[in-house]
């Protein structure tokens, strides 16, 4: 059965996602995942998340999907050892070196290559497979044909983002935010939070969403240029993905409200269950599902818009100096 993977930025969200039918939850240990620290957890909260997930029959993955500093890898191993000891079922990772080191130390741990690894072709998948990855998140820009080829040719689990953002750039290949503002903040555990660098685990100021003017030399050619960035819900493709045999459908959004995440999880749980119970070969009517999704979308869009405006404003604040968290 296909797995439904949901985000959790706090304990309440873990319970909400599990209660609405998620098969697995992912959380970010503070300082180590691709979100600002407000949506990450300390070790005690990760331990409680594991308990809630396991009590509800779900798995829990920890996202260590930053590109950390070399000197932070020993800290990563200590943190991983603690969380594996608590019962974490898998790790979501990006840095090839960290993946190789963690695989060496925890050979039984399932490692998922994060969206930030920007795995684009079958040779990429084979590379990550060779260093210890058993599941990969497909880039949002890949086509069903590319995914089908991957599924046929490679012994690897495929995760598909069904609620996420479709950015102008490839994820993991964007440095617009830290170019404009990078704040070095050290937390109590000594971890550099790299505020402004999503690749390194800090928040993303979403600089790309600025209202740009386009110049050729000194001449203005366009007054308003918007680089592509759409938050999407996958719907039409979900039946095809299930038929294709992908392993996991993943929802992004640790930063959203608990109730919204719960509603999204419930929607996809119902969709998956209904489709899987539907007689094979018969037409599956998606119209009612489009109606349900249309009721969820405005709330998501409003929350995202407020978040973007706040981040763009924060991105304009001068960096003063290093500070302790």
């Amino acid at each position, binding site marked *: 059965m296909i797995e439904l993977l949901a985000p959790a930025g706090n304990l309440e969200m873990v319970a909400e996602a599990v209660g609405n039918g998620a098969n697995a939850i992912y959380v970010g240990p503070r300082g180590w995942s691709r979100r600002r620290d407000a949506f990450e957890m300390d070790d005690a909260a990760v331990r409680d998340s594991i308990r809630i997930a396991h009590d509800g029959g779900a798995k829990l993955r920890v996202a260590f999907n930053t590109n950390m500093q070399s000197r932070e890898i020993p800290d990563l191993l200590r943190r991983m050892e603690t969380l594996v000891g608590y019962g974490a079922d898998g790790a979501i990772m990006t840095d090839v*070196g960290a993946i190789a080191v963690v695989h060496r130390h925890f050979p039984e741990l399932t490692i998922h290559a994060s969206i930030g690894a920007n795995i684009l072709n079958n040779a990429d998948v084979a590379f990550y497979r060779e260093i210890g990855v058993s599941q990969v998140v497909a880039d949002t820009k890949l086509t069903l044909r590319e995914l089908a080829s991957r599924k046929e040719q490679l012994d690897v689990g495929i995760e598909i983002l069904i609620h996420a953002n479709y950015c102008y750039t490839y994820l993991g290949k964007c440095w617009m935010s830290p*170019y404009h503002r990078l704040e070095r903040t050290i937390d109590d555990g000594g971890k550099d939070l790299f505020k402004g660098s999503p690749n390194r685990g800090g928040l993303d100021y979403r600089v790309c969403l600025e209202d740009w003017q386009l*110049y050729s030399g000194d001449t203005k050619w366009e007054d308003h240029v918007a680089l592509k960035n759409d938050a999407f819900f996958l719907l039409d493709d979900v039946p095809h993905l299930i038929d294709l045999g992908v392993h996991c459908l993943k929802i992004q959004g640790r930063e959203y409200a608990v109730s919204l995440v719960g509603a999204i999880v419930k929607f996809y749980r119902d969709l998956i269950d209904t489709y899987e119970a539907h007689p094979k070969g018969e037409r599956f009517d998606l119209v009612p599902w489009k109606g349900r999704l249309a009721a969820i979308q405005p709330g998501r869009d409003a929350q995202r818009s407020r978040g973007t405006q706040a981040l763009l404003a924060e991105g304009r604040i001068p960096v003063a100096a290093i500070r302790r968290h």
Partner: protein
Amino acid sequence: MTRSFELNTTISNLRDLKASDLSPYDAIYLGNITCRLYEANLLEHLDDLREAIAAVKVQGKRAYVTSYAAPRNDFLPKLRKALAVAVEAGADAVEVHNLGVLKIVHETHPGLPVHIGGLANVYTDAGAEVLKRFGAMRITPNYELSLEEIGQIQRQVGLPMELLVHGKMPLGISDHCFLLDYEEAWGVKCPDLCQQDLFLKQGDWAMKSIGKGVLSGRDVCMLEHLPQLVAEGRDCFRIEAVSESPAYRLEVGRVYREALKQAVAGMNGMEEGWWNTLRNHARVGLCNGFYFGGSGMEYLGARRWAEASGPGRPGTDLLQLSQVKGVIR
């Protein structure tokens, strides 16, 4: 004994290669990593690639063939052919930004030296160790790393670290060229669209657009820090001029060749003419990228950003290196 160094740059097509005076450089990376439709991209025009490799080598320079930053499955057959041409024509190395391509090179051309490009996302010494096992012989760490982090990788892994010392650094790679939306309105067609010296601006924020990606608006400039880089053991330096004119490639290259000669000889001279040259070529100013641990668009050092950027352009406050040292842990 005076140490040797390598100064290199990037050229996308045969036209640009023929128009460029390569005298300041020891090596040239050939090909455009962002777009298959870039005008006569050497990675797609393999007869041109063969001719380009020969043209570089006949001048006594090393010829490196680069490869795509974000190759999908349908890129790979042509890329395999380009790699074969690189081997046949005697290229001195290939540069890879994609780990799948690294695996392909390692399996199909095990003797071919591999340079890891800045978009392969080498952030850690452990990551560099993995890539070394796949045949990497030189690494450009991700542009987001500080000099301190780069030094640690070099010490642990023992491979040369290549640094972008001048030019526009990549800030994003895309599969979508938004410039195509404007073909009709501007009356400019692909592949000429991305050659229009385009900048996205908002307030004091600026990025150079190349259609399927963005580069830093400001030119990374490490001129006054070359003695430090040399002292730290760096000896491979890149002028990123892929989106620039032959004049930029020559004049900026000459400045760095002279400055590097002085730096490796233990001298620390800064000629005013060098700054004039860099100022004339930097449309929206200079920065240090991420080398000193701060935001990529900052300029840190003895030269004020405004001074380095020329009159009539907005300046920012000077941050002294002593302040920066407090930032890097």
